[in-house]
């Protein structure tokens, strides 16, 4: 062989090597390693981030040879990265599942490991809260934080506007909005740009307008013909007509930056926001001192809708559960069990990272606003899983888009129901 051919051969070899490196360089090789556990979570602010790093280190110390790779991401980033991961089939070993229709789809595609046997003790300990992560009698993920959605408010601004107590009915809610406006305070922020924060309003008006059996029927049969769903939209139209929202709310993002809905609440720009149990943590990340609203944080449940057919004490909620990928090493299950243990759940609660599901940790929630929320959660007759999660992304996305249109006055209550039904019919 002449020299030039050898050089050419070498060059082509390099080209091939470069190409395969470029094509396969997405980190998948790490995940396949039996001694490495990849773990994605969304506690990307202190103290949560550091706490989980410590948990991972402790686990590594107890399991020699195991390397836990923790990735802390902002929630929205994590969701989009997870979507891509499911698509490629290269799912992180431990990740967060929100339950409902989404989980059912992942189970159907064979991406999630059945934990019923391996974590039987933990499942029993968690009791009823695992229901949202079960499918056909099997448990696919262990909920570590279950919360309910409600109004987070700024106690100082409420006081400034002369409001004595948080509203308990919609009429009182409108009074509060009026009082805040009179005091020159923007009453409510909503991140309608991201759509789901706007949709939570409709979920709640539906929860207050529809009896439990109608809602449960709708989740399983995807039938929205009951008139209470249109009533829900009508109640919401009244809320929008009262103009309680921050200027520009139609393009306001939910949680990113100081001008997001959460940022406006955290920086005293608005008096309240409808959000889940994650809100204090999000606000902490959006303020320079890392305290969020701090002492000023208050919480009250979504008000009662007068004349509505739903249970006024039922709550909308949901949570996050640790799921293990089908392809994960067995040690990943051990790590998930550790995460649900009394110790870790207590530490989780003490750091205000969420609302623990392990009953042993319930007393450790120190934040008064979160403790209030926990009380409402435990006293609630039932917790309706967020509709978009319960129905799955396709129906949920169509529904959220149409509800956002109702916020801008471009859709009627009937059109919200129609768009949801249309998307649901395509699923059948």
């Amino acid at each position, binding site marked *: 062989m002449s020299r*030039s*051919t050898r050089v*050419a*051969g070498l*060059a*082509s070899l390099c*080209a091939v090597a*470069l*190409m395969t490196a470029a*094509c396969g360089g997405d980190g998948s090789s790490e995940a396949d390693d039996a001694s490495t556990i990849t773990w994605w979570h969304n506690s990307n602010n202190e103290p949560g981030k550091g706490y989980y790093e410590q948990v991972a280190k402790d686990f590594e110390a107890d399991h020699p040879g195991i390397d836990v790779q923790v990735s802390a991401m902002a929630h929205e980033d994590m969701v*989009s990265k997870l*979507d891509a991961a*499911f*698509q490629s*089939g290269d799912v992180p070993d431990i990740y967060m599942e929100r339950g409902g229709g989404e989980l059912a*789809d*992942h189970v*159907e*595609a*064979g*991406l999630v490991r059945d934990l019923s046997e391996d974590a039987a003790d933990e499942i029993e300990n968690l009791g009823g809260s695992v229901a949202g992560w079960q499918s056909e009698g099997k448990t696919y993920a262990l909920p570590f934080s279950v919360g309910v959605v409600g109004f987070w408010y700024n106690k100082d601004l409420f006081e400034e506007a002369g409001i004595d107590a948080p509203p308990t009915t919609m009429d009182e809610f409108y009074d509060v909005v009026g009082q805040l406006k009179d005091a020159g305070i923007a009453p409510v922020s909503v991140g*309608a*740009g*991201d759509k789901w924060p706007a949709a939570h309003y409709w979920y709640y008006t539906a929860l207050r307008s529809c009896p439990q059996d109608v809602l449960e029927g709708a989740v399983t049969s995807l039938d929205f013909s009951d008139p209470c769903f249109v009533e829900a939209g009508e109640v919401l139209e009244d809320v929008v007509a009262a103009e309680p929202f921050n*200027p*520009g*709310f*139609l*393009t*306001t993002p939910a949680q990113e930056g100081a*001008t997001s809905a959460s940022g406006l609440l955290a920086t005293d720009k608005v008096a309240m926001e409808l959000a889940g149990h994650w809100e204090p943590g999000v606000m902490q990340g959006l303020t320079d001192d890392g305290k969020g609203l701090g002492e000023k944080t208050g919480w009250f449940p979504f008000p009662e809708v007068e004349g509505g057919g739903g249970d006024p004490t039922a709550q909308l909620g949901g949570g996050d559960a640790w799921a293990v990928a089908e392809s994960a090493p067995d040690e990943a299950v051990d790590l998930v069990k550790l995460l649900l243990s009394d110790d870790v759940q207590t530490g989780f609660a003490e750091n205000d990272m969420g609302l623990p599901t392990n009953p042993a940790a319930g007393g450790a929630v120190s934040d008064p606003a979160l403790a209030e929320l926990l009380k409402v959660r435990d006293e609630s007759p039932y917790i309706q899983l967020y509709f978009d999660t319960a129905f*799955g*992304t*396709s129906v*949920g*996305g*169509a529904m959220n*888009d149409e509800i*956002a*249109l109702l916020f*801008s*006055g*471009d859709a009627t209550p009937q059109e919200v129901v129609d768009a949801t039904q249309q998307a649901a019919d*395509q699923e059948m």
Partner: protein
Amino acid sequence: MTQQGGTLVATPPEETTARRDPRRAVAPRPRLAWRERLEVLVFVGPAIALMAVFILWPVVSAVRMSFYRWKGFGPMDDFVGWANYSLVLGDDVFRGAVGHNFLIVVLSILVQLPLGLGLALLLNRNIRFRGVLRTIIFVPYVLAEVIAGVIWFQLLQPGYGVVDGLVGAVGLTAPEQGFLGTPDLTLYTVFVVLTWKYVGLAVLLFLAGLQGVPAELYEAAQIDGASWWQTQRRIAVPLLGPTIRTWAFLSMIGSIQLFDLVWVLTGGGPANATTTMATYLINQGTARGNYGIAGAASVVLFVIALVMAVLYQRLVLRRDTHEAR
């Protein structure tokens, strides 16, 4: 031998020996061809492989996806024929998105062309701070679209934003929901940001085109008593024709594929006022998990862009390529 030695100097040694020596003529020739083929393979192969992996394969898989109902994971086995296409084409949101794309195409040419041309003619003159001005106009083009989007998103914040402050300072009232939150204004607001971002490219291309206009023509016109305005109108602009047509083509394709800036500024909202075909397919695909519908939308986008490009090449750019010959 001496004669042969003389020719050897002029021609490459291998070729000469191959031609002269019948015994060796057979052996090296195929080896040469084989080597040539290998060279072609080595140099072109990686490029073709990259094209196949990153362009051809995604196109093919998008077409394939568009005939299935598929959630983005698991097996792709629910064949639905043309159902996704009729869904996409019957969707008001998608048709609105196509309308928005074409509005941006038309507005870009109507507004950015005169603006870019005017700035280019101005900056082609010997004025003070010419370099600085050129840089200022060109800097937005260098910024990443996402960064430009984030900056403008903050500037356009209702109430607290700089733009609202400026509008207030000159005695006007900004819309209550902000420029990005008022459905009737949002697309035009996005267009203003797009113009700010891309007029620099037009100016750059036009300035380059103006360098190609021979100085003698200006001189001759001046001697004939033409004013500055007349020389620009009768000489500079007509001779810029090919550059303008190429710019218009780039602008058109960019407007059809518009995504980043819209996504950062509005996400397609409010009330679908700024959806483009690209935001529609992201919303259907990534957000809702309807990858079949997103696939169909992307094929429609591809066909629209292809038809426009081919028509433009045939009808408008042909005269330029003919001139070049």
